[in-house]
């Protein structure tokens, strides 16, 4: 029987790192978003409904016939060579050359963040991340008691000039960060992509300061327009850049398959860490990828996903322009899964979520993407996981509650701001340097006339 005295006894046994593994009001609110009647723009889910079931059957059939015993057995910690060959193909599609020995197959990309942090971070060590950063990385960094320093972004991704200032400041304080964590393409949650000059500069900075960079690239192949800038890994040649890849967004998150490329000495430690964590990645999942690559044209499926997501992104951008008040700003991602919306600073998006849930719609409050309490007036919207009708309706409902709060604030302050009475002029502002106003282009312009 559990009594509070037992709880106290357990509490004394908890590692100090659990003190920072905390639940939050937001997480409790998120429990309601899972209800079926809620239109959730909160998840980061790819749409797995278009995956052809007969391909799945053929893959399973092939494994049953050709490698049943192997699929049911343990495998090497670093992963199967067959799977690594598939990974090499995926990376080649983004202009990177890797040999099988350069990489380790992992249990999803998330495990890479965990293993890299485990390998490099002692309690109190500094990790540099973008602000906002991937909400799922936050608990990983916290659980290793890393101190996370977030560097602001603009429409061109992480502000590398600010990164350098931050590094200088840390150096003056006698602190040396261990690595920079970045999602350079279609960033989660901001949706922005790091420009080529910034990428080059980031790699230069890493070399000059002997600083590792973890390039997290789950969405690179989900590009809806424009040409891809080179991955950091290809610019660096694998000296200071570690690379995280995953099959989650191009095939399935359910198979839990990712990978990491890192300089050999780092990779060796990561491998030992992986062995301790789970011995090996699911052999069955690895063979499924191999069979899938042999059974079908994986790039065709990625292409079909791209078509679906592009239309959903456009629908969301149109709906935002139609339903959000002029005080709101948002990013216009060229790929990936997310749009980041910044609201006036008197709106707290965690409270707004509580209000939105009454209308059966959900999003991720921006505070989840910061460790320092910022982002309270921002939200992350996902467009990949919902159908266009649901996106339109969901954005309409959120827009309504935002408008309601903007009006109420106006009433309370006596400002009575006129909400959506006219289209404001489209002002081009290339400087967009405030992370909380990402980016400062005319967010009001519909995508058709967007920059």
């Amino acid at each position: 029987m559990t009594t509070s005295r037992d709880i106290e006894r357990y509490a004394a046994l908890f590692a100090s790192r659990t003190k920072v593994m905390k639940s939050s009001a937001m997480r409790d609110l998120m429990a309601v978003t899972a209800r079926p009647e809620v239109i959730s723009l909160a998840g980061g889910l790819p749409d797995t409904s278009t995956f052809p079931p007969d391909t799945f059957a053929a893959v399973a059939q092939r494994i049953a016939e050709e490698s049943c015993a192997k699929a049911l057995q343990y495998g090497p910690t670093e992963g199967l060579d067959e799977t690594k060959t598939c990974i090499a193909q995926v990376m080649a599609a983004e202009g990177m050359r890797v040999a099988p020995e350069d990489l380790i197959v992992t249990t999803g990309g998330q495990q890479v963040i965990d293993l890299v942090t485990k390998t490099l971070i002692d309690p109190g060590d500094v990790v540099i991340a973008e602000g906002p950063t991937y909400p799922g990385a936050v608990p990983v960094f916290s659980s290793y008691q890393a101190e996370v320093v977030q560097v602001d972004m603009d429409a061109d991704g992480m502000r590398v000039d600010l990164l350098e200032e931050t590094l200088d400041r840390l150096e003056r304080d006698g602190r040396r960060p261990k690595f920079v964590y970045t999602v350079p393409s279609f960033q989660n949650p901001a949706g922005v992509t790091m420009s080529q000059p910034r990428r080059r500069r980031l790699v230069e900075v890493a070399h000059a300061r002997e600083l590792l960079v973890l390039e997290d690239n789950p969405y690179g192949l989900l590009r809806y327009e424009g040409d891809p800038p080179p991955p950091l890994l290809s610019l660096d040649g694998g000296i200071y850049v570690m690379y995280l890849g995953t099959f989650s967004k191009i095939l399935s998150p359910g198979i839990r398959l990712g990978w990491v490329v890192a300089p050999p000495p780092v990779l060796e430690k990561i491998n030992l860490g992986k062995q301790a964590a789970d011995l090996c990645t699911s052999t069955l999942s690895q063979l499924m990828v191999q069979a899938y690559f042999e059974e079908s044209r994986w790039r065709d499926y990625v292409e079909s996903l791209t078509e679906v997501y592009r239309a959903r992104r456009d629908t969301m951008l149109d709906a935002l322009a139609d339903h959000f008040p002029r005080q709101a700003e948002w990013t216009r991602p060229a790929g990936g899964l997310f749009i980041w919306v910044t609201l006036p600073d008197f709106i707290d998006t965690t409270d707004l979520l509580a209000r939105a849930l009454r209308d059966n719609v959900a999003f991720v409050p921006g505070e989840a993407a910061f460790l320092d309490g910022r982002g309270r007036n921002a939200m992350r919207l996902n467009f990949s996981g919902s159908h266009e009708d649901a996106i339109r309706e969901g954005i309409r409902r959120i827009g309504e509650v935002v408008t309601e709060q903007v009006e109420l604030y106006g009433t309370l302050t006596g400002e009575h701001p006129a909400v959506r009475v006219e289209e404001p002029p489209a002002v081009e502002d290339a400087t967009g340097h405030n992370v909380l106003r990402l980016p400062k282009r005319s967010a009001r312009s519909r995508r058709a006339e967007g920059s």
Partner: protein
Amino acid sequence: MTRVAVLKGGRSLERQVSLRSGARVEDALERLGHEVLALDVGQDLIERLREIAPDVAFIAMHGRDGEDGTVQELLEILDIPYTGSGVLACVRATDKVLAKHLMIEAGIPTPEFFAFSETAFRELGAADALPAIEERLDFPIVVKPSSQGSALGIKFARSAAEVPAALVAAFSYDSRVLLERHVDGRDLAVSILDGEPLPVVEAVPLGDEFYDFEARYEIGRTEFVCPADLPDGVTEQAQELALHTYRLLGCSAFGRVDLMFGADGELTVLEANPIPGLTETSLLPQAAEAAGISFDELVGRIVELALERAPA
């Protein structure tokens, strides 16, 4: 053997806490030898209850629907005995504005407050009264939704400039909000079981300036002291005030009353909770244990009280 339906979850913002309370109650009921049927409350609630036909419903729900009299009303219609307070007490207790007015009328000290509906601001120009209110209450002012049971939506406004945003936040949870005088002091909770006050629990937040939502349900964020170490007579006085409030609102079986022991030595009642949390870190189970009542006994007593109250 009694057939007990445990009602939990639902659409309340405290769904997660309720699921945890419910799971713990289910385990206890099973250990007590009851037949337990867990229900995550949704559209099919009535249908499921008719199908299950329980001897008694254990309401392990917090916040909207569970604590505000809604589910109690439905159970009355279905003639199913249920745990805890009846409809009227739930309605009174969850409406903080109503509860505080009742307290004032009955002479129970509660922090000074002003309450407004959203329409008062939108249609009656209530914003023009804010400066007068701010002057009367002093900063920081606590702004909170009238009906939210947990600490969600509670904001501290440290200056006049912070009041509008705090109001917007509070209105996210309810169409009525309170602006309340902030009492600087110690957080006390008095749980009551079958008309008897249990030992006082003091919640001591670790680090944070405010006993926030997270701290309420997390081990290691708040330190709970039970029985609270209070000056002579204060424990008895707090228990008396709590019992008075509990009776005033018409609560029955069990409940929890939250108080402040001000730096000025005065006790004030903040609110009453007809269905306080029953999780590992909740205050009622801690207080019961300090009184020598185990969690299983507590759950058993609550079920007995529900059956006793039920018309034969």
